[in-house]
């Protein structure tokens, strides 16, 4: 029998920290994926997840019970990630690319077969680096909007709620992100002639 988010939030609000633990265990993994897509770095993502839950706990009294706890949590995590990415940009630091070979394989599988496997692997590594660079070139808002729309499957209206902006503005952030990514990746993604 599963405790719903709403009940756990209610219990946590009345001082039951263990109930908040249920929420952390339930949402931790998806929050990590979001944070990783946003920051591009595993250590940063873990920091964002922890910071997000701590912020959420401190702000529980502000949570509107009619809303979805998951969306509210995503908003906090997106803002934590934005803070981190902005701070990184201010300091002129780029996210360190994490290029484990095991992680490159899925990308190679999406590319058209243009030659023997070693060549495909090399190409996938190159494209992967280009993709990481292109993601880093997005503004923090564009990156957030794109990650929420593309990877998390949120509709534009939900994205706008997370970003606390008008749906039109969220839409334009996604457009700009896709346009930048297309310009950076199209040559590599084009089928071999």
């Amino acid at each position, binding site marked *: 029998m599963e405790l719903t988010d709403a009940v*756990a939030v209610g219990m946590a609000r009345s001082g039951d920290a263990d109930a908040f633990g249920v929420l952390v265990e339930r949402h931790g993994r998806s929050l990590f994926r979001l944070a990783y*897509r946003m920051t591009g770095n595993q250590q940063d993502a873990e920091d964002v997840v922890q910071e997000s839950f701590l912020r959420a*706990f401190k702000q529980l009294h502000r949570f509107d019970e009619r809303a979805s706890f998951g969306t509210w949590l995503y908003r906090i995590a997106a803002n934590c990630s934005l803070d981190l990415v902005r701070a990184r940009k201010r300091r002129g630091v780029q996210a360190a690319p994490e290029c484990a070979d095991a992680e490159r394989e899925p990308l190679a599988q999406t590319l058209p077969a243009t030659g023997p496997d070693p060549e495909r692997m090399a190409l996938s590594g190159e494209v992967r680096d280009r993709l990481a660079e292109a993601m880093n070139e997005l503004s923090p808002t564009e990156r957030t909007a794109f990650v929420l729309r593309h990877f998390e499957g949120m509709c534009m209206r939900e994205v706008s709620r997370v970003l606390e902006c008008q749906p039109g503005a969220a839409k334009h952030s996604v457009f700009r992100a896709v346009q930048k990514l297309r310009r950076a990746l199209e040559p590599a993604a084009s089928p071999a002639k």
Partner: protein
Amino acid sequence: MNHLSEEQLILHYYGEEDDSPAASRHLEECEACREFYASLQRVLNVVDALPAPDPGPEYGARVWRKIERQLPARRRRPSPAAFPWRWALAATAFAGLLAAAFLAGRFDPQPGAKATVSAAAADPQTGERVLLVAVGDYLERSQMVLIELANANPKGKLDISSERERAGDLAVESRLYRQTAAHTGDTAVAGVLEELDRVLLDIAHGPAEVSPAELEHLRQRMESQGILFKIRVLGANVRQQETL
């Protein structure tokens, strides 16, 4: 022919545009837009493959272990361990309540509760311990009644007269524990006991035979309140105190 804009194609890719059938028709007829759309799909498919490491199913529990101690103290569950004197007071108050109930002739406690009275009255420390045992036992018995009903899967009417009787007895006991918790300011504990009391009373005052639909209704109610989870957490806390 007006071509579709890049924005329209992006919205079409995400299934967000208002005139999806019109865009689909246009794509069927216009080779230039089709090519552009195919290129957009290829790029976004590449983006899809951006790897994100999976931290594993235990990740949430690991995060919780890391942050648990960093939570502000004022927001922690009021734990009996943090206020042992409160449970000593509670034991005394509880003994007083039971004594008053006896004198008023309104309460015929379970044999276990009778033992609680004499032990608690004799020595506050012993009383505290006995009280914890009694509360832990009460929660366990309540949990068993609810689990039996939650797990029942009858084809037709189900005789729950035994559960009904036990729920009635437990509801009588519950009142005293609830008053004790309220007396010591344990609002969280009092809240859970109050919720449990309401469920037990509904079972006790309900029919001796229930249909599968009525049972499902009860199950949904327990699920929406998360009552079993709350009892389990409270019971675990009480048991922990018993062993200290």
